[in-house]
């Protein structure tokens, strides 16, 4: 039985100019110990889906889904009180800006032991040993002294390590990392990604990595979900996706990378991601798609074999 089972999840925000469908039909199954990456450009709704799972969306958001099960429990019908028992304990999440995600008024030790006290009872001081152990586990030198440090005294990399320590304190079954290294330098990013993979293997937890960087996906994830303008357009094993992308957007995205450029100019994708006011009819990618056909401009595609396209690109050696 899958650890996480989401089917046709949609999220709609009430804005001054009518409803904005930030997430439109996401399906995701996840087992213990798997690393899945969700990749997409800004505005593709990649974080919104996971925030909906955690119940962290503002009240203006309307979350609908056919099925949203975590470890057998139905997240849709769960009351807020029950949900608070599992988030931070069984599912936890780390965010993009480590420096602002820690409370400037409390010491690092305080914020970590707070989670332990919340989910395992006892006073914060009773969890001091465990907190120091967690700090060492995430690679923070001189853990005892750093216990009393405040976020403004730490670097970006250190803050992110504290966030990770805080969120794995209760040995969660699922850790969601929302662009954890986008705000960090390259060398620090490598350290953090390696730490996440180590912890994931050590605790056998599932890891959802949200990013816009295809290179990070290639080197970290087992499976990848590609999102475009709120819709899930492709979900494949990482190796297959890179060797043989089947959705035109994924193919264009991979070709646009500077690493894959042949010659002077890059093969950029013309046009712009559709916003709230100018969503095209039919397939949302049709104005920018190389393989667009008349059918794509009228009817929105349905998903077959996890590809949201009328004419998915052929597998290598297989005629369309």
């Amino acid at each position: 039985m899958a650890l996480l089972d989401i089917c046709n999840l949609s999220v709609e925000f009430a804005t001054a100019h009518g409803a904005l469908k930030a997430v439109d039909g996401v399906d995701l199954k996840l087992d213990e110990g798997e690393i899945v990456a969700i990749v997409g450009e800004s505005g593709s709704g990649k974080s919104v889906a996971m925030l909906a799972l955690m119940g962290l969306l503002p009240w203006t958001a309307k979350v609908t889904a056919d099925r949203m099960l975590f470890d057998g429990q139905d997240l849709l019908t769960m009351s807020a009180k029950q949900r608070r028992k599992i988030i931070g304990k069984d599912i936890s999440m780390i965010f993009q800006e480590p420096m602002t995600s820690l409370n400037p008024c409390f010491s690092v030790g305080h914020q970590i032991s707070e989670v332990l006290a919340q989910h395992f009872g006892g006073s914060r001081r009773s969890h001091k040993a465990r907190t120091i152990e967690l700090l060492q586990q995430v690679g923070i030198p001189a853990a005892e002294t750093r216990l009393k440090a405040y976020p403004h005294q730490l670097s970006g990399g250190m803050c992110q390590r504290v966030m990770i320590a805080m969120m794995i304190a209760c040995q969660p079954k699922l850790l969601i990392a929302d662009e954890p290294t986008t705000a960090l330098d390259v060398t620090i990013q490598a350290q953090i990604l390696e730490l996440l993979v180590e912890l994931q293997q050590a605790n056998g937890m599932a890891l959802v990595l949200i990013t816009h960087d295809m290179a990070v996906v290639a080197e970290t994830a087992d499976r990848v979900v590609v999102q475009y303008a709120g819709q899930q357009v492709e979900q494949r094993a990482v190796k297959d996706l890179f060797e043989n992308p089947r959705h035109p957007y994924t193919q264009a995205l991979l070709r646009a990378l500077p690493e894959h450029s042949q010659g002077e100019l890059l093969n950029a994708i013309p046009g712009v991601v559709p916003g709230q006011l100018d969503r095209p009819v039919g397939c949302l990618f049709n104005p920018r798609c190389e393989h667009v056909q008349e059918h794509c401009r009228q009817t929105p595609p349905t998903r077959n074999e996890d590809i949201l396209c009328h004419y998915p690109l052929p597998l290598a050696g297989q005629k369309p």
Partner: protein
Amino acid sequence: MFKFLFKRLLVLVPVFFGVTLVAFGFIRALPGDPVEVLAGERGVTPERHAELMAQLGFDKPMWQQYLSYVGDVLQGDLGTSLITNRPVVEEFFELFPATAELGLCAILFAILLGIPAGIIAAVKRGSFVDQGIMSLSLVGYSMPIFWWGLLLIILFSNTLNLTPVSGRLSFLFDVEPVTGFMLVDTLLSDEEGSFWNALHHLVLPSVVLGTIPLAVIARQTRSAMLEVLSEDYVRTAKAKGLSPVRVIAVHALRNAMITVITVIGLQVAVLLAGAILTETIFGWPGIGKWIIFSVFSRDYFAVQGGLLLIAVSVMAVNLIVDLLYGLINPRILH
């Protein structure tokens, strides 16, 4: 922390001299020279005038006079009042506790009501409660407090006669001043019921004086809370599975208080201005009423001394608020 306070102290030095300059310049800008001012209507013979000029050193160049004035100020000699011939400092500190007591009660009233109201309005943003609190605070903010005082007197003292019209203590009790703080003195004295009577006298003036600070603190607490509630670390707190009460009371409130403390600090100067009006309406024997009386009766030396002492007390209170700000803001404490 020490560096922060040292810097704040450093800033106050030029400001102190600025205020002495204003006080010094105030007398010199008056029509006629200081001796005529001293003589007042009685007038003075020319020789006496020249003798006084030399004796009081008014014939020296201006900057020398200013230096000697500052010298006197630093030794605590702020000149004598033209009306009562008593040193201004003595009169000031005799009346200062009354204003301090009134100001303290007013700011407490404003804080105890304003901060919770601001928090509730922020948490329930957009609801009726929020709109209710915000429109009430807008009315409070637009209130001419002298008229508001009269209105309350008409309503509560006159028609409902719940509260006394003026003064700090009814004549039935004679409580000899020890600290000058009526609430403390009445407790020290063995007069039965005098404490409650003093408290009774304090209610209306504190409400009137505290109205504008209350409105400002409620609005600023609300906007500070709204700002904090949209921060990343509040989302992290929720992601840790903490209960909404804990997220707001522990994580959000602590950060909002940093901005609110500075707002309260700014309200102190407003409080002293309000005291002038409130004391005039309620006949409250404080420095506000005293300074008005001095201005009216052309007691220029009293006004000069009062101006300086009030400015120094405002600066002192601001320093205390800076200290509080430093204590609760870890960026400065560590």
